[in-house]
Structure formats: structure tokens, C-alpha cells
């Protein structure tokens, strides 16, 4: 009982310390990201499903511009792209040698995720209306996002693992109710490299 009490205190204290330090940490995260005008990276997504013994692997790349544009593209196993410019999202998939518009599906979920990702690359973790957040200084530093009521049916928790390189995210882990989870590892991250604005306009 004593041991349990001690453990409880420890857990509560660690959460409190994360919360207490948060305003300063959010400011430093934003400061680290303020010089980021664009990000380009590749990613490897591992989707762990209880039904599968091995994770489902997807590879892709993304382009982000701080003005509010994001291209999130999967190269395999399904070649598809989401283009976000401001509040507009367009979805396409590649089939028979051409890009085809995607029949609208789960657009709200996708819109929410893209807006969240855009915020993360700007260090604006504390501005989410969808998630409560905690900062763990690490190392590695992590931001833990817990959904507010509504989407907790689909997402239990998101952990954003920050790189030692200011403003760069190493990995995102998304846990779902029921034991499924997703890990997205970023690599070949380029900050403020130049690329054509067309990447946000055309599939």
C-alpha cells in the first residue's frame, strides 16, 4: 500500500512538473520554430494492428510551408497525396499512370490531422483545441497530446518526439483504443530548403 502511494505521488509529481514547466517550454518550442519557413522530409510509417503479426509499412514524403501549406504524400503501398492550402484540402490517388481525385472520405479526420501536423512544425502545440498537452523535457524532449472528449474514441494519445535539432520532429507515435498504434519516423529532414510552390497545388 505504501509502495503504491509512493508510486502515485511520483506519477502525479512528474505530470505536475510537466504541466508547471509548460508555459516556458511552449515559448521555447515556438522560439526554436520561429525561423522555420519550410520543411521537407521523408517518412516511414509503421501501422501496428492487432489483426496483423507484422506492421503495415508505408513510405512517403512531405513538404511544409509556414504560410499554411502542406503536402503529405504516400509513395507506397498506396500512392496518394493530401494537399492542404489554408483551409482547403484536396485528395488524390495515383492509378493507371494518372492522378485521380479521391472520392471524399474521412475528410474531417484528415483535415484535423493535417492542421495538427502543421501546428507541430511551428512549435504551436499549446494552441490545439482538440488536444490537451504535456511537455516532457527528456532527453529526448517529447510533447504528449491527449485528446479532449469526442475524438478519444479514435485516438488515445499522441507522443511527438522532438529532435535535438531545434524545430525538428524525430518521430510521432499515435495510440488508439483497442491496442492499435502508429509510428511515423521522419528522416532526411531539410529545413528552409527551397521548393516550388506547385508541390502544394498539383498532385
Amino acid at each position, binding site marked *: 500500500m505504501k509502495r503504491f502511494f509512493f508510486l502515485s505521488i511520483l506519477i502525479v509529481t512528474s505530470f505536475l512538473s510537466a504541466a508547471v514547466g509548460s508555459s516556458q517550454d511552449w515559448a521555447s518550442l515556438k522560439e526554436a520554430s520561429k525561423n522555420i519557413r519550410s520543411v521537407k522530409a521523408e517518412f516511414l510509417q509503421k501501422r501496428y494492428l492487432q489483426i496483423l503479426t507484422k506492421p*503495415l509499412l508505408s513510405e512517403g514524403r512531405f513538404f511544409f510551408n509556414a504560410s499554411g501549406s502542406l503536402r503529405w504524400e504516400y509513395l507506397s503501398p498506396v500512392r496518394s497525396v493530401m494537399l492542404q492550402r489554408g483551409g482547403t484540402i484536396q485528395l488524390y*490517388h495515383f492509378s493507371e499512370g494518372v492522378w485521380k481525385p*479521391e*472520392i471524399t472520405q474521412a475528410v474531417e479526420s484528415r483535415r484535423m490531422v493535417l492542421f495538427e501536423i502543421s501546428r507541430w512544425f511551428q512549435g504551436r502545440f499549446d494552441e490545439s483545441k482538440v488536444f490537451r498537452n504535456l511537455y516532457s523535457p527528456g532527453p529526448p524532449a517529447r510533447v504528449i497530446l491527449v485528446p479532449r472528449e469526442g475524438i478519444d474514441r479514435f485516438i488515445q494519445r499522441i507522443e511527438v518526439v522532438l529532435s535535438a535539432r531545434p524545430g525538428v520532429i524525430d518521430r510521432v507515435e499515435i495510440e488508439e483504443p483497442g491496442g492499435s498504434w502508429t509510428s511515423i519516423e521522419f528522416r532526411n529532414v531539410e529545413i528552409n530548403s527551397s521548393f516550388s510552390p506547385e508541390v502544394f497545388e498539383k498532385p
Partner: protein
Amino acid sequence: MIRRKGLDTCLLGFFILFLGCVPISETTLSSGSPDDLPDCYVIFPAGPWESVHRIEAIIKGGASSSLIGVTKGEPSERRLQSLLLTPEGFILFDGELRGGEITVRKAVAPFDSPAFAKGLMEDVALLFLPPQVRPTTWGKDTDGTMICNWEGPDKSHTEITGSMDSGWRILRRDKHGKAIKEVVLNGPFVNGLASRVELRAFKPASYRLRMTLVQPSP
């Protein structure tokens, strides 16, 4: 006929399209050799398996959608669990067929109607589970093409024709003899699963599913 607001923007369009009747000739055959009987089941995985397919769903007018299909099968129990995911990994549908009963674990609108669950699990069963009864007729053509016919309790007919060299076809007819679904399976077969599958549904909804095996059984 099911109608819902905005239905034309989603895969549930499968269920609101007009009825189609496609004339596909019926093959008649006398009962074949017992030695040939196992070949009627060669396109269905025999043991427990799991798979990941890239799926392109094409509906009336050519509008299409890309999805990921994850399926796990336990043939001895006639049990199938099937998940539909967006390319990003969002689960749109998670259902199980066990002993003829469908259980939906998760379904996001517009994939949350009982009609969608029934249609999806029927398609998955057609692809991966052999009919429960013994074929009424079967045999091998002179060129080695296997032909097997089943009659269902509802007087529907299932015909499987083909060979490992030329590919296979599953044809399901309703009790009036009209084709309702056709599946073409092409090899190579990996752990009992065809690498490329195309399912065409004619009735009650018209749609096409092009499936490519991307991750077979471990």
C-alpha cells in the same frame, strides 16, 4: 434502395446504383473424378492467413477511391476479419464474419450502414472462403481448365473455372441465373493468395474492386 445525403461522395454509392444484368454464359458439366475435386479449392487459402491489399474501388461514372484492405482468415472456423483503411491508416471499417454472423467492431460514417457491412463481408467471403457444400459438378477440360459448380441453399450458383497458368474466375449467379458478381484472380499465388484480383459486382449494386496483394501471410 438506400438514399442518404451526400451519398454520391462515398463508397456507399455501391449500394445506390442501378441494377445490372450481365449475360455471362453458363457452363454445364457432369460430375468429375474424385481426384480432381481438391482442385476446386486450390484458390482458397487452406490454413490461417492474413493479408494486406491495395484496393482501388471504382463506382458508376468512373469515380474511384484508394484504400487498404487488411484481412485475416481462419478457414477451419469459416472466420474472416476485415479492415478497410485510408492510405494514411485511418480505420474506416472493422468487421468480422463468423459462422455466417457479421459483427461490426468499428465503422465510420458513411461506412456504418448494415448494408455496407453485409456487402463488404459477402465480397470478402466470396474471395477467400469456398462454398460450404460439396460441388454439384466438377471436371477438367481438355486444356486442363478446371470447372467446378456449386449450388447454394438459396438456389444461387457459384462457378469456379481456370488453372494456375491461365488464372481463375469465380462467378456467382442469383437464383434466376443472372450474374451478380465475378472475380478474376491472377497469380502468382503467394501463400495461397492471388497477387492480383478484380471483383466486379453487377447486382444489386454496380462497382469494381481492383486488389493487389502487398503483404501476404507471414
